[in-house]
């Protein structure tokens, strides 16, 4: 079905199911319990999960397949955001033109940057892309202020022209009238689940992006990209020009980033220059490696993992900690809070850093490898009596 083999179809269906049920799965704790702090099932965060999932899926096409480590992908995200907001300012609050233009502009932009950067490989390529991204960031901050509104960020306002919109058109990003922020809430006892239009649009586009990525992974084109990763010199000696392939991969991943940027702006009509900063470029590298570079599911997992930490752990303050440990005697409570304090709240980077180190050291293949190991552990136990040689895992 859909040109996929059984295993890939299974993965796609699994992702689709998870995406569909995310508002329920991510809200496992009742809204009035102490654990509600860890619920992630609110629209803004779920949107971030899938949007950065798209970003990481695209990045994985470049990094996971060709091994080219780009340190400048945030530039495409930023460019996508700016073009989307401009479309909403000039044309219409409907998100379709915004998203389409953001993909096109990011694509064009990546052709230019890719053409120059791909003349080199390895560390030189990384530095070139980093330089381009920082250039875009600084331009957006200074000379391009009329277009980007500098540090303040580009916002929509009531007085924008919006030539396609009538007088009564919604003043919020919408899909043919369905506003991105409109949501339905399902109350089941003390649980509360929010289903929002914006999230399901993002989730749908993420599934499309994921499907395309599977097809690329399984295509002859994908095989060629993997060949580039394993030995580019050898390919060149056999008379193959690898540059068109790497450039195509670069542009595709740039367009993915543009799509992510356009979606970010569609969910929340604001574009700021900090989206292009090198830290944002580094973040997508972390997501991909944390989840598992070169695997299909890894980047999505990594993106969810990092965004969860950024949004949930950063909001645990001392007050919350004292609430948790209030059952202890005073001295002990203060002591425990002091110990945990550096790791939560504004210290969430520290926790994430430690986890990242653990993953890289013990699970070089990322979270996906962790999952595989656990899976293998169970499978071996089950199959041991019948097949002494164990079940072979199909090659990737």
């Amino acid at each position, binding site marked *: 079905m859909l040109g996929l083999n*059984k295993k890939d179809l299974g993965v796609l269906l699994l992702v689709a199911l998870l995406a569909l049920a995310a508002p329920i799965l991510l809200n496992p704790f009742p809204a009035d319990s102490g654990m509600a702090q860890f619920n992630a099932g609110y629209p*803004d965060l779920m949107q971030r999960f899938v949007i950065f999932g798209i970003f990481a899926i695209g990045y994985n096409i470049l990094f996971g397949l060709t091994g080219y480590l780009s340190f400048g992908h945030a530039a495409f995200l930023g460019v996508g955001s700016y073009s989307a907001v401009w479309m909403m300012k000039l044309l219409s609050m409907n998100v379709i033109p915004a998203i389409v233009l953001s993909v096109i502009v990011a694509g064009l932009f990546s052709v230019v940057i890719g053409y120059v950067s791909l003349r080199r490989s390895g560390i030189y390529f990384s530095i070139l892309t980093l330089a381009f991204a920082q250039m875009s960031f600084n331009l957006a901050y200074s000379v391009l202020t009329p277009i980007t509104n500098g540090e303040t960020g580009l916002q929509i306002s009531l007085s924008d022209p919006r030539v396609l919109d009538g007088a009564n058109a919604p003043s919020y990003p919408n899909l043919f009238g369905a506003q991105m922020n*409109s949501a*339905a809430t399902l109350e089941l006892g003390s649980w509360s689940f929010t289903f929002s239009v914006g999230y399901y649009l993002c989730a749908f586009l993420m599934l499309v992006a994921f499907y395309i990525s599977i097809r690329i992974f399984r295509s002859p084109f994908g095989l060629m990209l993997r060949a580039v990763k394993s030995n580019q010199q050898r390919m060149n000696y056999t008379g193959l020009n690898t540059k068109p392939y790497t450039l195509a991969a670069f542009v595709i991943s740039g367009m993915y980033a543009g799509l992510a940027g356009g979606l970010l702006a569609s969910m929340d009509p*604001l574009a700021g220059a900090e989206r292009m900063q090198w830290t944002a470029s580094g973040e997508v590298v972390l997501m991909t490696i944390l989840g598992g570079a070169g695997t299909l599911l890894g980047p999505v997992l990594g993106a969810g993992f990092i965004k969860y930490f950024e949004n949930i752990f950063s909001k645990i303050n001392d007050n919350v900690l004292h609430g948790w440990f209030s059952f202890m005697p005073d001295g002990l409570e203060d002591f425990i809070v002091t110990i945990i304090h550096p790791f939560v709240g*504004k210290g969430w980077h520290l926790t994430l850093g430690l986890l990242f180190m653990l993953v890289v050291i013990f699970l070089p293949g990322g979270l996906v490898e962790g999952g595989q190991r656990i899976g293998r552990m169970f499978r071996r136990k089950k199959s041991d009596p019948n097949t002494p040689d164990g079940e072979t895992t199909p090659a990737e």
Partner: protein
Amino acid sequence: MSFSNLTRRGLIKTSAAAGAGLALPTYLSAASHAGFTNAPQGDTVTLGFNVPQSGPYADEGADELRAFELAVEHLNGGGDGGMLNTFSSKALEGNGILGKKVQYVTGDTQTKSDAARASAQSMIQKDGAVMISGGSSSGVAVAVQGLCQEAGVIFMAGLTHSNDTTGKDKKANGFRHFFNAYMSAAALAPVLKNLYGDDRKVYSLTADYTWGWTQQESIQAATEAMGWETINDVRTPLAATDFSSYIAPVLNSGADVLVLNHYGGNMVNSLTNAVQFGLRDKQVNGKNFEIVVPLYSELMARGAGKNIAGIVGSQNWDWKLEDQLGSRYTGTNAFVQSFGTKYGFPPSQAAQTCYAQTLLYADAVARAGSFNPCAVVEALEGFEFDGLGNGPTLYRAGDHQCFKDVVVVKGKENPENEYDLVEIVEATPAEKVTYDVDHPMFAGGELGNCNPGA
């Protein structure tokens, strides 16, 4: 991964179940609707305090958070009541807001618009905050104010000094108690003329975002009106930490006044750099070289140490106001008293504005008898009050800006202790800094209608 037992019957069953699950909320959701976003349920109400806990404005953010905690404590009837006792409106009874206990959530804006909006979004969507307050950067305030307008909650701006917050980016759901760049310039110009004469050449360094732009514009307009000349204005990135490369060109520019449109950590660093370069000891055009910092706070004075001595600037409020200028500024001592008791040092102007904003919101809800943003907007528009430390104040309906006296200050030459670093030069009366709603520096935006959300 094995999906071998996926049969047609199984697929149909699953999709039917999923479809039913998705269709369910459409008729279930209507039950708990109260006509506006995050209507408080039960006996508590949640407020969101979104302040910078990292980045150049982290110090201000920490002080804002202290003030918010204090305000919540007073609203719930704890502590000594602080400014609740001096506030001219007596609608608040110390039993929470409308009898509901006040709870709060905090977030880190990182002084970045994106992060601030994500943090505010989670407060609104996840924690059910009915009001968002905070911010120590106008860029962030403008971004979060826009978000609150769309989401249908009230935004009570904290420390934001750009003209745009209540100018071209004003929103019906947003309110600002803090003063703005235009007011600073209007209050500073006469003082600067007295001190430094009417023939000066200005070189300015400006933080490159909405606040810096509008403050530079305001100062330039006000000083040029009294005969000064602006010879250069250089924009510096907000993230900059070393300003030596920006200070060096000042030496040979022919300017005799340096205006630093910097705030927080930026200002501490740029002022220190400027003093290290010997600017204060220089003679240019036969006059002493002077440095002006149009907006600064006690926290920044503490950060800059000795370098602040003799530097002229303006403030929204100072903790010594009531002691030095009399009972017009009643409320000041009550607030300093309860803040000092709780934290052991006097509050900054950022703390005062955040405390006042929280009280003003609670009072507006109490007077309106509802948490509905539109009712709150109506209660705050044109509201005249006193006793929050700034003297008689008006919340103007046309742009949701507070009009009150502006304090002009000067760094003390010989401070007695680390909290008493500035002396009050004068308090410029509110009418001298008042402008029209359609003043050119504030034109280009519209409030729109209040948005109660879902």
